[in-house]
């Protein structure tokens, strides 16, 4: 019984949900730390960020971590869907009058909705950057690219740019001489796009609000599901959870707006 219990039982589903969720909270911290580098300006910013991006994509440990992260997201989503379906089945006939707002918080009752928004955001976000990095063509020079190179040359002294192949831009040559895509530039360009930049920023803001609410319930809930509940420490966990749910998404959300409104144009 014990073996199947850890996979099939309702409690096991909660453990996985909590475990993956809390792991993703850690991931968010790491991700945020990286992203905050985008707030930097000046000469070293691009180098620093691109070196960081390179490290994140090439270091074997980090690669494993990223696979775990993807798996966690996937697991979290699938588990969430299964739980939601089960829960729907548990009350086939609903109430004519139901007032859950009197006994529970909105976020706690709408984790599925919030999760769906977040999932949609993750897809967009991946297309924007990870997809671009992975599958985007090594772009040929077109009008906007010329502009970009121009700006870049004016704004940031990048020696390597001049030596680059005429047909590709947004290439970053690392300290070790390897050529990788220039994530820094891709990012900055996305949010500084005159037409789309602000729209992206607002989409990201909405997603971060969703993540905020998701975390507002999910952080503490994860601890509860794993059985970590003690009157002495509950207040502490709750406060950390609330702080986490506000601070992390807020910092994430600031970045696009900062890039759009404040950071020097490239």
């Amino acid at each position, binding site marked *: 019984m014990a073996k199947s*219990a850890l996979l099939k039982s309702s409690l096991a589903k909660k453990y996985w949900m909590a475990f993956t969720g809390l792991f993703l909270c850690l991931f968010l911290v790491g991700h945020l730390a990286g992203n905050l580098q985008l707030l930097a300006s000046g000469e070293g910013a691009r180098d620093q960020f691109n070196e960081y991006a390179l490290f994140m994509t090439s270091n074997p440990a980090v690669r494993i971590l990223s696979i775990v992260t993807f798996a966690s997201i996937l697991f979290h989503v699938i588990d969430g869907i299964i739980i939601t379906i089960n829960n729907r089945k548990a009350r086939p006939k609903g109430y004519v009058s139901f007032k859950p707002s009197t006994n529970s918080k909105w976020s706690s009752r709408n984790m599925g909705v919030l999760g769906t928004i977040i999932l949609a955001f993750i897809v967009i976000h991946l297309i924007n950057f990870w997809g671009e990095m992975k599958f985007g063509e090594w772009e040929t020079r077109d009008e906007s690219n010329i502009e970009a190179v121009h700006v870049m040359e004016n704004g940031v002294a990048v020696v390597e740019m001049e030596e680059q192949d005429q047909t590709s831009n947004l290439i970053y040559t690392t300290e070790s001489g390897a050529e990788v895509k220039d994530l820094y530039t891709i990012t900055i360009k996305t949010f500084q796009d005159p037409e789309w930049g602000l729209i992206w920023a607002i989409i990201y803001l909405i997603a971060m609000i969703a993540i905020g609410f998701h975390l507002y319930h999910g952080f503490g809930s994860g601890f509860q599901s794993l059985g970590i509940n003690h009157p002495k420490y509950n207040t502490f966990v709750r406060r950390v959870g609330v702080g986490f749910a506000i601070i992390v998404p807020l910092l994430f959300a600031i970045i696009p707006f900062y890039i759009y409104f404040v950071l020097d144009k490239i």
Partner: protein
Amino acid sequence: MRQFELTHHQIFKSSNLQIKDMNLTLKIWRQKDAASKGGIQTYPLGGIEADMSFLEMLDVLNQELIDKGEEPVVFDHDCREGICGTCSLQINGEPHGPDRGITTCQLHMRAFKDGDTITIEPFRAKAFPVIKDLVVDRTSFERIQQAGGYISVNTSGNTQDANSIPIPKDQADAAFYAATCIGCGACVAACKNASAMLFTSAKVSQMALLPQGEVEADRRVLAMVEQMDKEGFGNCTNTGACEIECPKGISLENIARMNREYMRASVK
């Protein structure tokens, strides 16, 4: 003698005229039996006093229905003092009505105003099928307890002395608070997922907290959770609605304790 002269009116209607009676509109779920479809029916009801309990208000309605030759509304109730856990009812969208820390039988009509519309429904869950009108079948709770909610000791008269195992007062009190669960099902009714985690965890906790129950704690929690899942209750998403609506204030801590107990038992 005097009581032989009592008219029907005198026995059933209050003769006290100083108190202003309430007029209400009741929307009540009526369903002939488990197989029937059922639906909400509306009943106007007058002459309700603030001092009446909610169930006494339903008694008045039923008396009127019987007098009119209609079938009275069937609802569960027994001790009418908040301890047996028989009464249920989803009143205006909340189990046991708008007040906190009480069962439906302890709810008084002073919680409502003249002219109010009150919606009364049965507790809803797949594991609590409707039997008739407002009565639901909660034997799923019994089966969860039967699966393992006990300590395997025989009655012999030779059990070791009650004071042979000292139990820290805090621990004994915690076990007591878990054991105050009256098994009414409000936790399931309030939960958006119709989850029975608060109930099951209260039963698991009560025994897990005592040295007497610790011995077979693993077996117990695995069996009870398995049965809980089998009954078709939903999964806990930690909304906390159960704790708020629980007439006995059973704490979410019990759910966390069961989560721990179960995890420990299943990795062993």
